[in-house]
C-alpha cells in the first residue's frame, strides 16, 4: 500500500491511528495493566477486608512463603494442573477429534444428516455456562436427577450416587460438564480443518498403498496439527483460568477437595477476606499463564503478525 499516495495522506493516517488505537489501549491498560500492577503490590501486604480503603501493611514475601509451605496449595496446584487442565483439555481434544471425523463422514452426507448434525452440535455451545451448570446439577442429583433414575432402573446401582459429593465421582462429573459445554467449538474447528484437506492427498496416499493408520498418521494428523495446537493452547487458557464451573458445580467441595487456583483466589479474597494472600495466589496463577501466553504468541501471533507485516 506504500505505493499509493496523495497530499495529506500521512497526517490523515496519523489522526486515524490516534482515533483507532488510543481508546482501545486506554481500556486495555485500565483493565489489564493497572489491576495487574495493583495486584502485585497487594500481594506483598496483609490487606484484609477492613483495610480495603487504606491498604494493608507491607509484609514482604510472607504471603508467598505461606503459600509455598502449605499442603493445601499443593492440592490446589494438582487439581488445577492435572485434573482441570490436563485431563479436562485432553478429553476435550480427543473427543473433538473423534467427533470431527465422525461428523465429516460422507455416510452422513448420503443420509442427509450433515446439516442437522452441525446445527445440533451448536446447542451445547450456545448454552450459557450457568444454565449448563444448573441442568447438569439436576441431571446428576441423587434424588430427582435423570442419570441416577436411569442407573437405578437399569439395575446398575442399588443406591443413587451423589456424584458431586463423593470424592471418587466429583472430578469425572466436573470434567463431563465442562466437556459437554466446550466440545462443540473444538469439534467445529477440527471439522473446518478437515474440510480444507485436499482430496488428492488422501487419494494419493491410498494409491501408494498406505494403510488406514498410515493415512491417519501421515495425512490427516499432520494436516490437523496447526488446528490441534491452537485448540490445545486456547482450551488451556479457558480451562486453567475458569472460575465458574468449579465454583458453581461443587463450590470447591466436598470440603476443599476440588479447590482450584481460580476458586482459591476467590475464596481467600471474598470469603476469608485475606486480600493480600489472595493477590499472592493470583500472581502465581498469572505467572503460570504468562508462560503459556508466550508459547501461544510464538505459535499463533507470530504467524498472524508475519502476515500483517506484508
Amino acid at each position, binding site marked *: *500500500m506504500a505505493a*499509493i499516495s*496523495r497530499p495529506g*495522506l500521512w497526517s490523515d493516517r496519523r489522526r486515524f*491511528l490516534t*482515533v483507532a*488505537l488510543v*481508546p*482501545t489501549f486506554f481500556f*486495555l491498560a485500565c*483493565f489489564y495493566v493497572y489491576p495487574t500492577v495493583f*495486584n502485585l503490590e*497487594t500481594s506483598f501486604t496483609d490487606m484484609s477486608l477492613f483495610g480495603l480503603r487504606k491498604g494493608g501493611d507491607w509484609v514482604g514475601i510472607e504471603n508467598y512463603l505461606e503459600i509455598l509451605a502449605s499442603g493445601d496449595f499443593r492440592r490446589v496446584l494438582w487439581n488445577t494442573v492435572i485434573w482441570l487442565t490436563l485431563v479436562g483439555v485432553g478429553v476435550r481434544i480427543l473427543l473433538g477429534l473423534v467427533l470431527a*471425523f*465422525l461428523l465429516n*463422514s*460422507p*455416510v*452422513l*452426507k448420503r443420509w442427509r*444428516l450433515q446439516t442437522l*448434525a452441525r446445527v445440533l452440535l451448536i446447542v*451445547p455451545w*450456545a*448454552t*450459557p455456562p450457568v*444454565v*449448563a451448570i*444448573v*441442568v447438569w446439577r439436576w441431571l446428576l442429583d441423587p434424588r430427582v436427577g435423570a442419570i441416577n*433414575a436411569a442407573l437405578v432402573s437399569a439395575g446398575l446401582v442399588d443406591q443413587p450416587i451423589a456424584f458431586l459429593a463423593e470424592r471418587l465421582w466429583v472430578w469425572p462429573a466436573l470434567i463431563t460438564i465442562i466437556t*459437554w459445554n466446550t466440545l*462443540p*467449538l473444538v469439534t*467445529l*474447528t477440527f471439522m*473446518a480443518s478437515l474440510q*480444507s484437506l485436499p*482430496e488428492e492427498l488422501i487419494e494419493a496416499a491410498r494409491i501408494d498403498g498406505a494403510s*488406514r493408520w498410515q493415512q491417519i498418521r501421515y495425512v*490427516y494428523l499432520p494436516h490437523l496439527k*496447526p*488446528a490441534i*495446537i*491452537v485448540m490445545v493452547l*486456547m482450551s488451556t*487458557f479457558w480451562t*486453567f*483460568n475458569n472460575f*465458574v464451573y468449579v465454583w458453581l458445580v461443587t463450590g470447591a467441595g466436598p470440603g476443599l477437595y476440588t479447590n482450584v487456583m481460580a476458586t482459591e483466589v476467590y475464596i481467600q479474597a471474598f470469603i476469608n477476606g485475606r*486480600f493480600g494472600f489472595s*493477590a499472592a495466589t493470583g*500472581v502465581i496463577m498469572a505467572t503460570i499463564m504468562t508462560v*503459556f501466553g508466550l508459547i501461544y504468541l510464538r505459535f*499463533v501471533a507470530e*504467524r*498472524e*503478525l508475519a502476515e*500483517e*507485516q506484508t
Partner: protein
Amino acid sequence: MSPAFRLGAWLRIGLLGELAIVLVTLLVLFLLVYPTAWVILASFRTPETMFVAGRWAFTLDNYAKLLATGFWRNIANSLLLCLVSVLISTVLAVNAAYAFSRLRFPGKRSLFASVLFGQTFPWIVLVTPIFILCARLGLLNNPVSMIFVYVAVTLPFSIYLLVGYLRAVPRSLDEAAIIDGATQLQIVWRIVLPIMLPGIVATATYAFLLCWSEYLFALALLTQDELKTMPLALYAYFGENVTEWGSVMAASALTTLPTLLLFLPLQARMTSGLAAGSVKQ
C-alpha cells in the same frame, strides 16, 4: 469437493456399517442436545410433573411466577449491559483491527501481541483489584463500571476475529478510495464496513454471548438484587436447600433462548472465523 474422510471406505464397510455410523451419530447428537432441550421443555411443565417421566402437564405458570418476582428487571439489566458494551467494543475493535490489518506504525508488533495476550490472562486475577478499585471509587453496583469491564473483556477477541475477517477484504478498494481523496475513517466506515458487515455481525454476536453469560465480574461488582444480571439471578433461584425448579427452568430457558437464536444462523461464519488462525497453513 468434499472433505473427505471417507469413514465408510476407510473401514471398508457395507450398509450395516453405514447404519452403525448413523446410529452412533444420532446417539451422540442426542446426548449433546438432551440437557438443553430438557430445560426448555421442563420450563413448560408444572413442577409436580417435571421430574416424572411420562407425565406431562403444560403450563405457563413458571414464566408468570418468574416474571412476577421481578426477573424482567434482570432481563433488562442483562440486555442493557450487553448491548451497550458490545456496541462500544465493536466500534473500537473495527478501527483497531483496520489499523492492525492495513497500516504500518511503530510498535505494531508488540501492541498486537499485547492484544492477543489479553485473551490468555486469567480474569479471576483481575477481579479482586478491580473490586477494590471500584469500592474505593464508589463504583460498586454501578452499570458504568460493568460496561467498562465488558468492553475490556470483549475487545481482545473482537480485534483478533476482525483482523481475520479483514484479510478477506480486497485492498484494492481502500487504495482506490485513497486516490479519490477519502480519509481513513471514511474508508473504514463507508467502504470497508459494508463489505465486512457479516464478519462484524459475527464478532458482535460472539462478544454478546461472552457478556450475556458472564458471571464472575457480575458476582463481584453487583450486589444489589435489582441490578443483577440474568445469570446471577438465575443461580440465586437455585438455592442450597429449597430449589424453585419451576423458576429455575423458566429462567434458564429465557437465558438460553437469545444465544441459541443468535448462534444458529451464524454458526458457519463463526467457526470459520474462530478457526481462521488455526486452519490456514
